[in-house]
């Protein structure tokens, strides 16, 4: 983890008229490099210092404000970060609030990403844990120093609890607010003592979400809700196929629509700007764009899959090699083969993509559910010819993301910016994507084909495992390529496959990365594991059956080196009553139980699913029992919530999710053709958390990967049929 130092920002804030204690951090090395010598030392870093660049502020009114460098998109980050700070600070939870931090990579970088600010890969808690603890502890120490000074007593005799500082012997006490100004004048402690975990009062306990109130009364502000004086709403006509370009359009007809103000062509298509959304939509409908599709992508999903299947017959680049698979296969008593098809998936966040941008006298200002602060700052700076620090970003709540707002190339943000540029900044612009725009724009979870084979010896031991994956690279051509592609292998494509945890002596994982497919692809909640967990865990189940072994027993046998996998597996099995007889269904119904385990982003999750398959092949998932090990459970209720949500999200994809292309056109557009799980399909979910003292890891994504394979294994148990393609198809499961 990078070094960071705590700095006192109070004086700067004081100058801006807000008295109180404000603590921030700076990264000495980075700050010096970027801010020039001398600047880091006094904590004035960068040029955009009108922002409250801090992690913690205590106001005279007792309010404790925690500044979140991470996006709140539903995953509970605001509450999690506040829990950590408040516990070390011994604050009164009721007075703690959370605000989005400014975009400033020097101060707010993701410590696991290096010099970039952003949220993703379930890293928010993992990278902030120590940093936020220190922020809280430093604040507490400074409040104690202030009280010691004021009361002329020893700091060591002072206690702090629930936002009140006390000296028992002299019966004196003061609230944080009463001490804030004096605390701000204290030196920041060089070393802070962190709490002994047994003294945690909030961490590991129930602390209610900080965003529950505003998200239940209509007050929470999403990008979609931004209204600025003079703002225009823009809808863009996008090409019907990836790579098509504008040939002609009728701006006059669009402008004839009441409320339409302007029509501009941008690299992404044709933008209609209007006073309100509905007028913009009517204007866009009237545009009559004709497209030049000569260079457009015209393959369908079937063509793509056929190409991938051919590729899978040939060796790919080696992503992982242990032992000698070829030799093991020649000696095998039995060889089991299977192949798997995974469709493109849309994120379909409830809030479609959108972004507000305005040009200002000294730069540009952005309102966005911002997940890639630094990347978007650089992209906008380049487009507008600004310095990075002239790009000011206001981070709002995001109505879901599931990876979509973590755009690798700032796609929709740049689209908004192009419109602003095309009208020479004469009005602030809110780019709105309607659901259909969002669903057809691409940036899908890539379509993948996996071919697998395994060798068993005479006693049913798995002696070799060969896994060949075919699919587009997410990071190719993006700034992430340098970091994540080694020797042609995109680590993201094979995560969850190349690090198969089972002790199999001969293992080969290979990858084909086709480059002729022009469909934009992106990380989708749990990324590579969204397909690799399925193929590895269902194939493993099939091997257990072929070897005549219990799927839990065989897994445990091969997980001796992986105690955290084994731990969640055992816990889930035990809580689900693995091995007991499942209650039978109604006449014609087949029931089954299945299990899967998977690690992603250093968190471990095992799930046991119970399903009922009707005679017509329809699947009802009745119950999912989950066991989770994500290190220290900062907020257990949020962990439960994330895992519940992950079960529903994953199930939505496994039962219904499929984006298909027909001659290059995306066939789906809205929730009628891309159905999303509804409440009646939601299973009962139980979440059990492994008690752990290990450093916390993420939970926004790790609940997703093992859901579909657990359900598939349950379906196999119920019907004897293995599902080799997603989503599940009832027609494959007829009685």
């Amino acid at each position: 983890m990078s070094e960071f130092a705590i700095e006192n920002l109070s004086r700067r804030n004081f100058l801006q008229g807000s008295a109180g204690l404000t603590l921030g951090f700076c990264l000495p090395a980075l700050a010096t490099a970027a801010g020039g010598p001398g600047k880091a030392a006094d904590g004035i870093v960068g040029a955009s210092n009108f922002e409250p660049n801090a992690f913690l502020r205590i106001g005279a009114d007792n309010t404790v404000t925690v500044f979140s460098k991470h996006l709140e998109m539903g995953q509970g980050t605001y509450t999690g970060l506040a829990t950590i700070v408040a516990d070390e600070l011994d604050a009164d939870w009721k007075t703690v609030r959370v605000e989005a931090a400014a975009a400033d990579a020097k101060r707010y970088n993701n410590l696991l990403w290096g010099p970039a600010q952003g949220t993703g890969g379930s890293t928010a808690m993992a990278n902030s844990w120590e940093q936020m603890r220190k922020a809280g502890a430093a604040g507490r120490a400074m409040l104690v120093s202030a009280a010691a000074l004021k009361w002329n007593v020893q700091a060591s005799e002072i206690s702090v609890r629930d936002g009140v500082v006390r000296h028992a012997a002299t019966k004196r006490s003061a609230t944080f607010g009463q001490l804030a100004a004096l605390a701000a004048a204290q030196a920041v402690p060089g070393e802070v003592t962190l709490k002994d975990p047994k003294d945690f009062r909030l961490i590991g306990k129930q602390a209610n979400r900080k965003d529950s109130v505003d998200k239940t009364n209509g007050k929470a502000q999403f990008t979609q809700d931004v209204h600025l004086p003079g703002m225009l709403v823009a809808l863009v006509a996008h090409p019907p196929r990836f790579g098509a370009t504008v040939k002609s359009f009728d701006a006059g007809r669009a402008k004839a629509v009441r409320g339409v103000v302007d029509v501009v062509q941008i690299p992404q298509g044709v933008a209609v700007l209007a006073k309100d959304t509905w007028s913009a939509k009517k204007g866009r409908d009237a545009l009559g764009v004709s497209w030049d599709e000569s260079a457009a992508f015209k393959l369908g999903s079937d063509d793509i899959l056929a190409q991938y299947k051919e590729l899978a017959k040939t060796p790919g680049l080696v992503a992982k090699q242990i032992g000698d698979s070829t030799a093991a296969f020649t000696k095998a008593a039995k060889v089991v083969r299977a192949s798997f098809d995974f469709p493109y998936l849309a994120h379909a966040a409830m809030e479609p993509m959108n972004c507000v941008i305005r040009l200002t006298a000294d730069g540009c200002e952005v309102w966005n559910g911002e997940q890639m602060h630094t990347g978007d700052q650089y992209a906008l700076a380049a487009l507008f010819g600004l310095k990075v620090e002239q790009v000011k970003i206001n981070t709002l709540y995001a109505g879901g993301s599931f990876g979509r707002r973590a755009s690798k190339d700032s796609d929709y943000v740049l689209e908004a910016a192009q419109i602003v540029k095309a009208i020479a900044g004469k009005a602030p612009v809110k780019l709105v994507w309607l659901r259909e725009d969002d669903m057809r724009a691409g940036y899908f979870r890539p379509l993948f084909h996996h071919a697998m084979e395994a060798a068993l010896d005479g006693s049913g031991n798995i002696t070799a495992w060969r896994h060949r994956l075919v699919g587009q690279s997410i990071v190719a051509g993006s700034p992430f390529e340098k970091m994540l592609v080694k020797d042609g292998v995109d680590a993201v494509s094979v995560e969850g496959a190349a690090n198969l945890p089972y002790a199999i002596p001969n293992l080969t994982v290979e990858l084909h990365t086709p480059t002729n497919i022009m469909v934009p692809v992106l990380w989708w909640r749990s990324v590579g594991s969204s397909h690799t967990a399925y193929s590895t865990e269902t194939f493993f189940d099939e091997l257990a059956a072929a070897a005549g072994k219990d799927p839990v027993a065989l897994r445990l046998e091969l997980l001796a080196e992986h105690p955290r996998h084994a731990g969640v597996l055992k816990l889930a099995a035990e809580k689900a009553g693995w091995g007991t007889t499942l209650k039978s269904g109604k006449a014609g119904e087949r029931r089954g139980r299945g299990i899967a385990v998977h690690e992603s982003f250093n968190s471990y999750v095992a799930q046991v699913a119970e399903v009922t398959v009707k005679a017509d092949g329809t699947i009802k998932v009745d119950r999912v029992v989950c066991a989770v090990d994500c290190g220290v459970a900062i907020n257990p209720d949020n962990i439960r919530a994330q895992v519940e949500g992950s079960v529903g999200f994953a199930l939505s994809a496994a039962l219904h999710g499929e984006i298909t292309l027909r001659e290059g056109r995306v066939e789906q557009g809205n929730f009628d053709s891309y159905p999303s799980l509804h409440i009646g399909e939601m299973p009962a979910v139980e979440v059990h958390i492994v008690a752990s003292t290990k450093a916390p890891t993420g939970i926004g994504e790790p609940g997703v990967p093992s859901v579909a394979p657990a359900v598939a294994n349950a379906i196999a148990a119920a019907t004897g049929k293995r599902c080799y393609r997603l989503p599940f198809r009832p027609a494959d499961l007829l009685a």
Partner: protein
Amino acid sequence: MIQLNVNGKTHQVDVEPDTPLLWALRDTLLLTGTKYGCGQALCGACTVHVDGSPLRSCTTPVSAVIGRKITTIEAIDANRVGKAVQEAWRKLDVVQCGYCQSGQIMSAVALLTKNRKPSDADIDNAMSGNLCRCATYVRIRAAIHEAAKALG
């Protein structure tokens, strides 16, 4: 000019009669608690009450609700059921991203107004048109039961 009665107040809105109520609420009256999710009555994010019944405002032209009483999330706490539902939602921390939740709450309030002790099947029926991509369904169900209990 079209006259709309929203949350007990009369407003003049200068929009075309075919404008969906959703956009009149959001873009003209700046009542942004009601959300856009699909525009096709497929997701429920835009649910409001019209004369006490839940309605998808994204497919309801303003011309169809002239003279009718429109209630949005912003005013749902003015009614006892609305308050109980909000409180249950907060107690159980139902929300994740929150974007669908105005619609969820409006549908839940409508359900509990008609049916004080809904069964799981009643809940499935009343709430199946309200999608939640964060899949907060386990807690939505629990919170509806919780609110029912609180309402007695």
